[in-house]
């Protein structure tokens, strides 16, 4: 892509960001934030970072967007419109000066660093040993697998943290139903959900598989799964699970635990997270599949929020 395209894209990113931040109405702000996230995805494409582009659009724009919309709706139901209220002029001026100065400093620092893909040269020769092609996956699940392992537990921990907010008497229970209140709307969304959920599963599975060699991976795939689950949940295709369902808990911890177990099993081969020669790809794919499932369920429940009192299952067929 040409430089002009990049430049316009960057300006649009800044524009959407500014609107998302400063527009009065919260819904508009979130809408522009989602647009901003999608443009960010394009920017990552512009940087030839397709893995990140997928993650940014799916997680940064998609999941975060849904999250914010849901939060805004729940606030609105309580009479809080989450409009941006102005702060004192003096504060704004001071902040403006400080932030402008900071940006100049930061930009100067950024410009003083020549862009280069220094570590690509380190990564490339190591890839054949792993048997996979996607270097980002290689970094995520081999060279820096330790980060990823801890991160999978951060995600799990975030869900536990969200659950810890459950109000008195709601535990163990289901999150507030994110579904449509209006029955016909619910039917429409439900039909879509029924259609989308299997497709999302297939697509997510493909993304994981492709992630070894092509852009994709557990996180992107998990997001797709979460999206499918959420849409299905909104339409009532599936009921939201109670937080104490053993099956649910198992699904949540499966990925991180398998990852941890494989990591520890590596000790037999020489140390934490060491993959025995030849087994690397198999192990990575195993980790990715279990992780993707857990991430999908975790993200969906993160969006749904803590268990709430009286959140009964409108469609008691249980969760798939």
């Amino acid at each position, binding site marked *: 892509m040409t430089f002009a395209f990049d430049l316009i894209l960057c300006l649009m990113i800044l524009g959407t960001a500014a609107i998302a931040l400063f527009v009065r109405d919260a819904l508009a702000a979130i809408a522009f934030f989602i647009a901003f996230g999608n443009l960010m995805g394009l920017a990552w494409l512009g940087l030839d970072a397709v893995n990140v582009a997928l993650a940014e659009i799916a997680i940064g724009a998609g999941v975060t967007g849904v999250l914010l919309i849901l939060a805004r709706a729940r606030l609105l139901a309580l009479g809080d419109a989450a409009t941006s209220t102005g702060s004192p002029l003096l504060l704004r001026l001071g902040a403006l000066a400080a932030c402008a100065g900071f940006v100049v400093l930061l930009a*100067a620092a950024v410009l003083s660093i020549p862009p280069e893909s220094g570590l690509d040269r380190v990564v490339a020769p190591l890839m054949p040993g792993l048997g996979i092609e996607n270097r980002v996956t290689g970094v995520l699940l081999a060279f820096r697998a330790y980060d990823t392992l801890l991160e999978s537990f951060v995600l799990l921990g975030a869900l*536990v943290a969200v659950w810890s*907010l459950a109000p008195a008497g709601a535990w163990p229970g289901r999150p507030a139903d994110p579904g449509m209140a209006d029955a016909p709307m619910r039917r429409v969304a439900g039909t879509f959900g029924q259609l989308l959920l299997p497709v999302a599963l297939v697509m997510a599975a493909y993304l994981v598989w492709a992630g070894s060699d092509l852009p994709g991976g557990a996180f992107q795939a998990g997001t797709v799964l979460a999206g499918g689950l959420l849409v299905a949940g909104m339409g009532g295709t599936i009921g939201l699970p109670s937080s104490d369902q053993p099956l649910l*808990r198992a699904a949540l911890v499966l990925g*991180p635990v398998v990852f941890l177990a494989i990591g520890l099993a590596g000790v037999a081969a020489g*140390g934490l997270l060491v993959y025995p020669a030849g087994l690397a790809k198999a192990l990575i794919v195993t980790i990715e599949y279990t992780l993707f499932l857990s991430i999908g369920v975790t993200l969906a429940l993160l969006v749904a929020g*803590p268990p709430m009192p009286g959140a009964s299952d409108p469609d008691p067929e249980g969760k798939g």
Partner: protein
Amino acid sequence: MSPLDLLMAAPLGFMAAALMLGPSGRWLILLAAPLMAGLALWLALLPPDAAYLVGQWDLPLGILLRADGVARLMILATALVIGAVGLHALAEPPEKPGHAAQAETFWPLVYLMWAGANAGFLTTDLFNLYVTLEMVSLAAVALAAMGSLAAALRYFMIALLGSLAYLLGVALTVARYDTVDVILLAQVAEADLATLLALGLMTAGLLIKAALFPMHGWLPPAHAAAPAPASALLSAIAVKLGFVILVRLWFEAFAAVTGPAALHVLGGLGAAAVIYGSIQAMRQDRLKPLVAYSTVAQVGYLFLAFPLVAGTVEPSGAWAGMTLHGVAHMLAKAAMFLAAGLMLKAVAGDRIADLGGLAQAMPLTVTAFGLAVVSLMGLPPSGGFTAKFLLLSAAIEQGAFLYAGVLVIGGLLAAVYLFRALSACFAPLAGAGPDTASRGPVTGGVQAVAPLALAGLAIVMGFAGTALVDVSAIEAPWATPTVIQPEAAP
């Protein structure tokens, strides 16, 4: 197997297990506490050059885990603190109904914090530190939210800002040096704009996490409002990881870049924190805010030590003083929060004036509180004394009389506010006439054991000074070069 990985893996395993077991997951602490203490002890006794690369991937790409003196001491103290706090929480009588969610989720969060803290103390990788920092912060905010949602939200927002500042610094470092490993950075770091900005950003972010004055604003409300076990963990563990990362940055990765002026800024902030925190603590009428402000003051000492460590040719004394202060504060402050929790529960109030008669009613708990007071004030024999003694020696040796003065005055101010709380326990029961016996023993002694053990350990530290100083010097950045000397990026 090595304790370096098990110390991270075991708590994560317990976290998953606690989630699977649901309400009965609380019993896991009976297994976890001794196991983790054993692992931490094993780590402390490893040969000095204990370190390895995760997955055998070499630097600059891979992640190095290293058991240096700071990590050994911090992890041991963490194991003791979380173990004791966990057992204390296990003995907690069933909470008010309706708090079942908190009672159950408390445990996975504690294990997450445990894993994050251990992993963070061990790693030398700045990005890996970011992830562990988030593990600890996430758990910390969630634990704080069990007390006051508003305070936790404030904590959350400011901690998020801190995380981002740190992350931005890491981003600049990656871009500039193509590595985020502390040991490699120590070899290549130069004092250019990007590096200085990166260091400044990371420092600012971590100072928020470590709650150094004037970035401490979130701490007192959050720590004071949380339930006692949560407060104990917040004050003991959560602020320490930020401090340890700062040590890694300032004395190792960017030791060549940092100038004395910058170190004195940190030292000055530390000194200001000591004075400010103490004065604020003196002004509190309620017990838990007093203890929380004492944390603000005590964190100050950690940073007051920075210029002292840098100021000598042979910094083992100041270095040990800094490290041991962190450890002693962990033990004593956790003990103090647990004891304070028991005391406040017994009197069903939260003011210092409510504490009258407790010295008779719950002597063990008050003793624990008193021992914690001794260590926090830096009176001998205690870990707090050993640390402050080393720092004061270093300050006087260097002629840093300002810091020496702050160390001395800080101890006196601590005496003023801590003894105020302690002597309130000796006062007769407020408004209840001469019959002090009416306030019978309130809780079973079981729960008092945890603060008593922790405070006792803080005291015992005072007798093991030489051994602790030796441990703190293991693989210290100023000592002989580290054993692992990976090649720099091609």
